[in-house]
């Protein structure tokens, strides 16, 4: 195969018995002698430094892991109508995009295909869209500018989604519990509840009149965590939604008893 009938041409040499030409240019990297500064061997000099970074990172990561238990919600229940779906945070921007009028309903294609499609194609093809030799970000303002604008919009969308979700969570009345019996109605807590304005809006059976029902409030979630008595006191003090601040007329001690009594309302 290596024989060339025309004797004038140079003989082609191969590596061993393969078809790799012996004079095939090597793709091995340039040495870094043209770069300023010293270079050092990957192992052990450089990798040791990388591993120091990794060690610091691991300590931080494990601290986070030990501080925050991973959340596990209730068993999936397709009939649960009051659950507010929310994707993992890194999909929030896309989720939020689809809430806007110009990217939903008849224009949903804009939100699901066109905008993400443009963004991802542009990212994928970035090396061919930005072909100049210049690498410094300030010297290629278009690429840098587009990237910064996209980053800001993604961050803004994520933030808007988060805020909206929080708001929905707060006004979400939750599922009406099947059991509507007030727990511990003979306790001091209920008397305080009765004496104050609470009963006018939330009802004598906690069923809710002008305000939302308080049945099952002891199970209710605030963000990722169960609501606590402190959260309730905060709502009593500062009000929420249509509920004005400072409606409670009793003492701090009574307020605490009331909050703790409300936490007992764990009807399901």
């Amino acid at each position: 195969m290596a024989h060339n009938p025309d004797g004038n041409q140079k003989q082609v040499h191969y590596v061993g018995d393969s078809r790799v030409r012996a004079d095939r240019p090597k793709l091995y990297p340039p040495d870094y002698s043209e770069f300023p500064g010293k270079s050092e061997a990957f192992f052990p000099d450089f990798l040791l430094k990388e591993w120091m970074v990794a060690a610091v990172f691991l300590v931080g990561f494990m601290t986070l892991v030990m501080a925050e238990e991973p959340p596990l919600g209730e068993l999936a229940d397709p009939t649960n109508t009051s659950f507010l779906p929310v994707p993992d945070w890194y999909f929030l921007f896309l989720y939020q995009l689809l809430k806007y009028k110009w990217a939903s309903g008849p224009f949903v294609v804009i939100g699901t295909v066109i905008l993400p499609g443009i963004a991802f194609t542009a990212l994928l093809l970035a090396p061919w869209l930005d072909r100049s030799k210049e690498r410094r970000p300030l010297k290629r303002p278009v690429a840098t500018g587009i990237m910064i604008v996209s980053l800001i919009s993604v961050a803004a969308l994520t933030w808007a989604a988060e805020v909206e979700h929080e708001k929905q969570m707060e006004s979400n009345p939750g599922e009406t519990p099947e059991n509507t019996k007030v727990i511990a109605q003979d306790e001091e807590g209920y008397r305080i509840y009765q004496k104050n304005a609470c009963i006018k809006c939330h009802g004598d059976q906690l069923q809710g009149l002008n305000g939302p029902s308080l049945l099952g409030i002891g199970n209710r979630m605030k963000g990722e965590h169960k609501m606590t008595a402190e959260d309730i006191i905060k709502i009593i003090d500062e009000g929420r939604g249509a509920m004005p601040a400072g409606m409670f007329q009793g003492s701090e001690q009574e307020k605490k008893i009331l909050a703790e009594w409300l936490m007992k309302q764990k009807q399901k």
Partner: protein
Amino acid sequence: MSKKLSRRQFLTYTFGGTAGFLASGMLFPMVRFAIDPVLKKGAGSEYVETTMTEAEITDSPKAVKFTIHRKDGWYQPPQGEEQTAWVFKQNGKVVALSPVCKHLGCTVNWNSNPQFKDEFFCPCHFGRYYKDGRNVPGTPPAKPLDKYKTKIENGRLLIGPLEKA
């Protein structure tokens, strides 16, 4: 070889030490998690009531079914698991033998092979046991059958956990 540590050796040792820290930091929780079943103490089982009354226990082994409720990780069948014991009286004492052959875990039967009268017989590899559960020498099993702890309450037989040999 010189006794002095060269710079390269020092770097390599530090590198190895850091590698050990990284690996153990990552793997310790995971390995502890994986071997947890080995380190967990077996749950102390309780005595289970059977349908057999004391009067029904005779000198000849009878198979008694009983149901235990055991939690297997997250799984616990609501109807429980049915198990069997060979129950008989020996010198006035109640004996409940596990039917699991000590050879390879098949189920033994009383008096099931006409060749070997009044013996427990395992059909898998012809393991044999005397009535008191001792393995017949020369047959595959190397140990006697396990015994259950038993109790009589209100005239009924109760079966407990296996006795530790």
